[in-house]
């Protein structure tokens, strides 16, 4: 017996935090304009000691105003999508559940686009209209996962294959709606089609958006984390979990709302980045096991690492132009999905 202790959990997280810091440094260094590690370290020290006036202005601009916000965005988006993926996998008892595969990301996109279209007509104060997009994305995500859940049931039980088919069909239906909205509505800033379909981290946001994202992430992920041991039991089936003392309807509701919220959060600022919620939980499960007390924090950190890394590739591989970050994650994620599907079938 080797039960989980707080010390081991913290140690595992610490290792991942170290890797994340390393990846962030790499991401700061590489880009269309190369920054030497020496210059970066020097500027970082100056920044820490408050000697900001000595930092050369274009380096400062590139590092602090362009790359760092983008990296922060990648961290929050990666963590949100991975925690959402882990939660959907436990909730639907399907290792292939992922916000993108199930069409939840597309649902969030539709919600966000509708919110962007509606915003100019509502004449809300700027603070509220900024929240309208994530709210729309959340509602879109929640409606989609509910629809997929009911479509994926056969005789009252969730069937793995039916669920995946329902997700794929729902996603293609929602793509059509996205295309329809994008080609008919010209008003306002609805961003590009590629943004919603493939995902992109290049949009710049105000500081307040980052605060909202960060706080939103911690509240939703924290709510899911309070059900970590319940999710462990839920993997064995709802009836069995109930017999072991899990308040199944309550846990289902908390996780359903929080995971939809996390998906909406990520999609409203970065579009649909594919397969992150599938790859990261799977890799973390292989390394750290399937106990959600470990899995949830490690997938959050792993997701942050994965998306920062993928975005650095997206920025640099074909520089000075950019790939969509979703293209990078899909190149890794789609084969993995096929592998998992084949393995599950045998």
């Amino acid at each position, binding site marked *: *017996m080797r*039960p989980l202790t707080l010390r081991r959990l913290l140690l595992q997280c610490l290792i991942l935090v170290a890797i994340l810091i390393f990846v962030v440094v790499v991401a700061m260094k590489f880009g269309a304009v190369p920054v030497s590690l020496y210059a970066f370290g020097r500027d970082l020290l100056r920044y820490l000691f408050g000697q900001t006036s000595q930092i050369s202005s274009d380096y400062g601009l590139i590092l602090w105003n362009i790359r760092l916000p983008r990296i922060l965005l990648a961290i929050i988006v990666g963590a949100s999508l991975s925690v959402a993926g882990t939660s959907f996998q436990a909730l639907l*008892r399907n290792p292939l559940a992922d916000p993108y595969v199930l069409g939840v990301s597309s649902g969030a996109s539709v919600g966000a686009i509708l919110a962007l279209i509606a915003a100019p007509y509502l004449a809300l104060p700027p603070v509220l209209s900024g929240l309208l997009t994530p709210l729309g994305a959340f509602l879109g995500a929640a409606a989609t996962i509910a629809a997929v859940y009911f479509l994926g049931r056969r005789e009252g039980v969730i069937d793995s294959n039916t669920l995946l088919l329902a997700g794929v069909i729902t996603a293609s239906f929602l793509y059509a709606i996205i295309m329809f909205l994008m080609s008919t509505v010209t008003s306002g800033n609805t961003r590009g089609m590629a943004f919603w379909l493939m995902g992109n981290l290049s949009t710049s946001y105000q500081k307040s958006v980052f605060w909202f994202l960060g706080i939103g992430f911690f509240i939703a992920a924290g709510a899911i984390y309070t059900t970590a041991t319940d999710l462990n039991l839920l*993997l064995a089936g709802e009836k069995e979990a109930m017999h*072991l003392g899990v308040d199944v309807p309550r846990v289902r509701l908390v996780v359903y709302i929080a995971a939809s919220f996390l998906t909406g959060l990520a999609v409203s600022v970065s579009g649909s980045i594919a397969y992150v919620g599938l790859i990261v939980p799977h890799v973390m499960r292989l390394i750290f096991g*399937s106990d959600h007390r470990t899995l949830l924090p490690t997938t959050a950190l792993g997701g942050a690492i994965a998306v920062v890394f993928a975005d650095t590739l997206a920025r640099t591989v074909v520089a000075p132009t950019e790939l969509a970050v979703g293209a990078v994650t899909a190149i890794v994620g789609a084969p993995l999905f096929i592998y998992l599907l084949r393995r599950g079938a045998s």
Partner: protein
Amino acid sequence: MSSGPAFARNASDTVRSSADARLSVEQVSYAYSANPSQAPLFTLEATSFQAKPGEVVAILGPNASGKSTLLKLITGALAPLSGRILLNGFVTHSLTPRTRAQRIAVVQQESVLLFPSRVWEFVLQGRHAHGRSLRFESDDDLLIAKNALAQVRAADLSDRSMDQISGGEKQRVILARALAQQPLLLLLDEPTLHLDIAAQVDLLHTLRRLAAENRYTVVVVTHELNLAAEYADQVVLMQRGRCLRVGPPSSIYQRELLEQVFQTPLTVELGPSGRPRVTVLSDRQ
């Protein structure tokens, strides 16, 4: 174990139907229908029986006789249409899932795992209802899980993976998880279904021993007439949603009654242990 003062409080709620009964099923009925406006597809007519600590009760009957429905009612997962089920004086259906899991352990036919865990992790799941929602297992939990594994003679399986042990071993581990819940009432739904004969006998023998040692009340739903006769103190005989008779095996195991219930010719004789033994006759004889 976990019984004792916690159940003595609230004396006003406590109803003594029988002085020393732990489980008391009182005139319980149930109706299942797919659509409320239609006639029910299945009904369970008023059923009553009582069981003391340390007693093994077998619920017997052919398919669709209402055995599993009765078991679900006892777990508290279903609410009876009329009547009530009391465990130490508390109505099982109105307990919260957490409290219920501290007092009632259910062993299902099969446990399907999405991501196979280690045996010890699986057994520790039984401690879930005794801890707060988010916490790490205490030394007590580990000790209880270890003891539970030892009680079903599966201590050596502790570090194996759940998908690498045999069907009989798996059934013992599932039983160990139920023991880790430290329940008052142990419910088993056809636990012998996928087991070979040696494992079946072993399981029921273990149940008998545990009931005596830990003072559990054990309720088993089963098809195995002879195993029930050998190991049960009381038998509840069911047919088409009706409880036909409740009593010790010697009073239930009568040729005409069993032939009528199971719709097959059979003979009943006294086995070497002094308990009845059923031989099913094929039609040609």
